[in-house]
């Protein structure tokens, strides 16, 4: 609008409004500052409308004197008309003036009232403008002058409908094909609406003058209260703009309700391993249900929301799942380590349920009664020389269970060894007693927790004759075989490839290895260091000490068990009788045992019934020879609790109790007419030992009786 230029310089304080009723100096528009000049401009136009309507009816073509507007600096700021009417255009008709119905209340009254009013008003305005222009207060009279100046040239916007008629060229093909250059230029910035603020900051430069003017105006208002000659109150009506409805469409917002419960462990998980969780989530198949979307957005909600989603998916399990998917999943699961471990635990739990009474009895725990069914005690065999499990009435041996599986069916047990470290582990070697029909041997490591399947089983080349677990490294199991080979297996891992064997050793035993023993040997003279070494006695009459070399096991001969053909029996002297033999043939050693306190001393039992005491340092001759048995000595064992006492059992149906350095046995025991195969001391009671002969397992208690066995049980099978 053309008034924009002057708006910046002029400052208006009031806007005068035409009103239907009273004339008030409208002060309501003032906001303690300045009016928007643009608004005043617009109001001018409105008032113009009101005025022009009036004017039109009363003074249509009355020419007006040219009005010139001066501001306080006497600058000519005459506003230019909005529209320069073409001389050729028709004069505006009164009806074309834009009518402002809002300004009117009762039309006729207004016209008459205002009509009669405007004339003197205008005149008075003119007069007052000239008067007031000299005053410091810039009044709105200038505005009204503007108003009326505009009215001189009645602006009829609807009249601008007349356009020049343009000559239309016929659109031909050529015209269409013409290449027309189109120039794109940036237009000047058109400011459509600029509403400067009516507030001024207290810190600005104009603030002082503004405050002063405000005060002056306030003073003026106070003064007008009683001054009715100069100032008349008028009321003003604000005009409302025409409202227009506008419809807007937007996309519907998708709202999702998500609820979650955060638990302590959820927060802990998020804190500890968020990346791990992310990778775990990725192999999951995609799901399209809503909680998944929430999972992507917030990680804290991830765990619990996915729990919720899995629960919901379980609820509506789709039976038509992709079978290929589940198969591959099954493979994945089944092959994982954890699954195998779970299987192991599960199997043991099941067996625990089944064997609970027996296991409890073994471990001397209270037997849990099954509350819903009667307990039927199983009576199965137990191969163990324990101190006898208890029954209610009289002490008797009760078999607890049998270690048997299809692998071991039909095989004879040749040797057994308990593991020191893991007292639940029992290694059993299977082999034939007869020299003929050798079948490949088998070693099974049984756990008490599972009597139906061994934890490990190792197939050996030939029949196993003896076993022993190492003390220092309890995972190592030394196995002696019928063909003289000694192998050391590692039972820790399920992988059976790692084995050390003496197969290639040139000095290996030529006959069956009859017994193996791991013993701590003193390395240095001080006796502090103990290294473990493997000793074996074989049917070729040698006692060897084995060590691991680069190509397997290698041995050094410790002792040769020479055959003693002629034996003199002096009273109590120790004589070296071996040197009397011409042909020193080696006699098979069947068993040996090291002294528990002094590992340099060992006792060896021979095929001929002689027991030799040997020393590891003296490989040539025996320290002592004990002779009582006239059949092969099957087992020798030192007493763990009383020193210098040992037992020997042999195929002559007797068990002899010896004391070291005594030529004659202290006691001899005979129970049945069968070869005694094995004898063991009880680890806890010094006077109790167990023996196995062809018919039964016997428990002897020396405290109770020397002559008779205390407990025995029937063994159904041979051995």
């Amino acid at each position, binding site marked *: 609008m053309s008034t924009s230029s002057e708006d910046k310089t002029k400052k208006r304080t009031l806007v005068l409004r035409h009103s239907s009723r009273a004339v008030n100096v409208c002060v309501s528009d003032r906001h303690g500052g300045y009016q928007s000049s643009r608004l005043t401009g617009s109001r001018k136009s409105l008032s113009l409308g009101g005025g022009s309507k009036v004017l039109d009816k009363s003074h249509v073509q009355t020419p007006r004197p040219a009005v010139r507007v001066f501001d306080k600096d006497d600058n000519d700021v005459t506003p230019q008309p909005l529209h320069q009417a073409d001389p050729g255009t028709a004069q505006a008709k009164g009806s074309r003036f834009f009518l402002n119905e809002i300004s009117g209340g009762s039309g006729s009254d207004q016209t008459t009232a205002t009509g009669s009013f405007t004339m003197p008003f205008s005149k008075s305005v003119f007069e007052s403008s000239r008067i007031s222009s000299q005053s410091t207060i810039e009044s709105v009279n200038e505005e009204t002058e503007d108003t009326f100046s505009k009215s001189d040239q009645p602006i009829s916007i609807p009249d601008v409908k007349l356009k020049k008629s343009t000559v239309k060229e016929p659109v031909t093909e050529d015209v269409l094909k013409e290449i027309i250059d189109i120039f794109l230029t940036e237009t000047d910035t058109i400011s459509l609406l600029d509403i400067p603020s009516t507030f001024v900051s207290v810190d600005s430069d104009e603030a002082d003058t503004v405050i002063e003017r405000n005060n002056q105006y306030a003073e003026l208002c106070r003064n007008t209260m009683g001054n009715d000659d100069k100032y008349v109150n008028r009321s003003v009506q604000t005009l409302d703009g025409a409202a227009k409805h506008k419809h807007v469409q937007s996309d519907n917002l998708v709202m999702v309700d998500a609820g979650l419960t955060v*638990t302590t*462990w959820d927060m802990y998980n998020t804190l500890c391993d968020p990346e791990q969780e992310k990778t775990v989530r990725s192999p999951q198949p995609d799901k399209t249900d809503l909680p998944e979307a929430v999972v992507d957005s917030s990680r804290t909600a991830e765990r619990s929301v996915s729990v919720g989603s899995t629960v919901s998916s*379980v609820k509506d399990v789709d039976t038509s799942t992709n079978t290929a998917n589940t198969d591959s999943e099954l493979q994945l699961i089944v092959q*994982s380590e954890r699954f195998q471990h779970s299987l192991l*635990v599960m*199997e043991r739990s099941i067996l625990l349920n089944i064997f609970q009474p027996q296991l409890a009895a073994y471990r001397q725990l209270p037997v849990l009664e099954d509350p819903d069914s009667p307990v039927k005690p199983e009576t199965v065999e137990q191969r163990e020389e324990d101190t006898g499990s208890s029954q209610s009435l009289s002490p008797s041996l009760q078999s607890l269970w049998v270690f048997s599986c299809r692998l071991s069916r039909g095989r004879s047990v040749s040797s057994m060894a308990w593991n020191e470290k893991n007292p639940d582990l029992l290694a059993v070697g299977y082999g034939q007693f007869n020299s003929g029909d050798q079948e490949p041997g088998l070693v099974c490591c049984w756990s008490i927790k599972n009597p139906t399947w061994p934890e490990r089983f190792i197939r050996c080349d030939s029949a196993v004759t003896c076993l022993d677990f190492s003390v220092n490294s309890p995972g190592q199991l030394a196995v002696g075989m019928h063909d003289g080979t000694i192998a050391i297996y590692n039972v820790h891992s399920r992988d059976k490839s790692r084995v050390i064997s003496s197969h290639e050793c040139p000095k290996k035993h030529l006959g069956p290895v009859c017994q193996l023993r791991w013993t701590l040997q003193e390395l240095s003279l001080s006796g502090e260091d103990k290294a473990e070494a493997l000793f074996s006695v074989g049917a070729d009459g040698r006692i060897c000490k084995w060590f691991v070399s680069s190509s397997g096991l290698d041995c050094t001969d410790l002792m040769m068990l020479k055959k003693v053909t002629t034996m003199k029996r002096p009273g109590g002297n120790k004589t070296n009788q071996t040197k009397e033999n011409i042909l020193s043939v080696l006699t098979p050693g069947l068993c040996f045992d090291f002294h528990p306190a002094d590992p340099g001393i060992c006792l060896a039992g021979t095929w001929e019934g002689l027991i030799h005491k040997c020393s590891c340092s003296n490989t040539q001759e025996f320290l002592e020879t004990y002779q009582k048995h006239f059949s092969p000595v099957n087992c020798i064992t030192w007493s763990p609790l009383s020193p210098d006492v040992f037992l020997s059992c042999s195929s002559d149906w007797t068990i002899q109790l010896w004391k070291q350095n005594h030529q004659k046995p202290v006691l001899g025991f005979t129970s049945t007419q069968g070869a005694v195969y094995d004898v063991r001391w009880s680890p806890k009671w010094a006077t109790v030992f167990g023996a196995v002969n062809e018919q039964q397992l016997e428990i002897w208690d020396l405290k109770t009786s020397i002559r008779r066995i205390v407990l025995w049980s029937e063994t159904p099978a041979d051995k």
Partner: protein
Amino acid sequence: MAEVEETLKRIQGQKGVQGIIIVNSEGIPVKTTLDNSSTVQYAGLIHQLVMKARSTVRDIDPQNDLTFLRVRSKKNEIMIAPDKDYFLIVIQNPSD
């Protein structure tokens, strides 16, 4: 792999074992020796139970975790070995 199969067979052959179910992490049974309806029922119900049990254990101490769950009832015992990726469920009647 064959070992695992053999172990599963052995478990199945143990005294009193009524069924074995292997359920994947979403609660869908992938291997079972029971009939379909029982399997689905067991899988769904036990899944929720295990979640609750695990939540309980971990709420008390977040560093703890559930390793094995046994539910002894009048007629049988349900043993569950839970894990992140699977559940192994065995139903046994030990007095059989």
